[in-house]
């Protein structure tokens, strides 16, 4: 099986690699790119913990081959925070307790990114619909919805600083 050369942009940085065609995008991201923030939960496209953003769209990285993203722009969870600052969506998840074990969270963040880019003021029903493709066993989804609602508000307004103190 001949390996294939690919070039792509990942979290704003140009990357180049040579990969076997069968290497899944999820494995490529985690192991070849050393970005383990994207998680593998099922490898059959149901749980969504492997979701990443490819050319602006949330996709299941376990259902794509790395060779398919030649020329693409990918954002993973590692690309969200800027320096010492969490991205407003991450900040919202923190403030609203939108995660417990965190394993499904990078996938939720990818889904949220796409939703909020298309729909800056989603209703709770729209948020619920959007995350219906991300399985979570910890949260029961309620605070994930709160987090995305809050993230939407943050993205529409200037950011505010929050510190670790009683709320």
């Amino acid at each position, binding site marked *: 099986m001949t390996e294939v050369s690919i070039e792509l942009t990942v979290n704003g940085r140009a990357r180049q690699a040579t990969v076997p065609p069968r290497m899944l995008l999820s494995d490529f991201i985690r192991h070849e790119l050393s970005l383990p923030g994207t998680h593998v939960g099922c490898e059959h*496209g149901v749980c*969504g913990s492997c979701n990443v953003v490819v050319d602006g769209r949330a996709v299941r990285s376990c259902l794509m081959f790395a060779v398919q993203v030649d020329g693409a722009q990918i954002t993973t969870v590692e690309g969200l925070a800027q320096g010492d600052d969490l991205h407003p969506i991450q900040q919202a998840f923190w403030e609203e307790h939108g995660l417990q074990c965190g394993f499904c969270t990078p996938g939720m963040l*990818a889904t949220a990114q796409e939703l909020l880019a298309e729909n800056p003021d989603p209703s709770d029903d729209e948020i619920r619909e*959007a995350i219906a493709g991300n399985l979570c066993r910890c949260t029961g989804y309620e605070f994930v919805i709160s987090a995305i609602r809050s993230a939407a508000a943050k993205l529409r307004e200037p950011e505010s600083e929050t510190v670790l103190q009683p709320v």
Partner: protein
Amino acid sequence: MKPSAFHYERPADLQAALGLLASGDDTRILAGGQSLVPMMNYRLAQPERLIDINRLSELDFIRDDGDVIAIGALARHAAIKASPLILKHLPIIAEAYDWIAHAAVRNRGTLCGNLCHADAASEMPAIMQILEADLVLSKVGSSRTIAACDFFVGVYETVIAADEILTEVRIPKPAPCTGWGFEEVAMRRGDYAWCTIVAALQLEDGRITAPRVAMAGVEDCAARLATVEDAIAGQAPATRLFGQGADAAAEAAAPTDSATGNAAYKRDLMRALLPRVLSEAVSRAG
């Protein structure tokens, strides 16, 4: 669960793709991959060769062709769902998409890929049949057009030949007075359904004309329910009529048992959903 090794081709245009397809066997087409790749990860599918058609931009279209909406092989579910053309002329498709998988899967999956995969519980094979769509199968040097009703023959089985690609689906624009109905029951919304019923019909002087009714999920493949269509054609809509038609269809069906839903249940669903879908279609008609 990792796929086994395969040769990978990424042709730049349709002719190159067709040429490759004609030149070897044990080949699968990679479009959206949302059905193929899970099977490959489980090693239920182990093709020797994958032809990635995602570069064939000439196949990425949703077009108004006069009397017909033409949808190309690379049109993604998400694009079709959001297309103003679809919303205007084929709202049943937009409604069905609320029940098909989830956003990330729809971002990559294609309508044509879904039709070729022919899962017994897929909604689109049933919808294409009531819309009387034509499927264009292309190979090197020629193409042929197959009616949707003739395309699906069994579980994961269609009439497509090994050297053909489904390049386009052509859906006649329904008359504006066409009413439609859609119902499905699955364990969770987005799951493959135990039973999907779809219908399109018109009303003329208070009587049903051109009824087209189909179901998915119940038998080996999606199919038109000719007996229901015959029973209601030319009749005034009525609860009793619809109920009898549903009972007869349920009796005549040959439901498959699945891991989670048995044949008796699928008959229950036919009885419950057929009247509802027909009533919805009537209320939307005219």
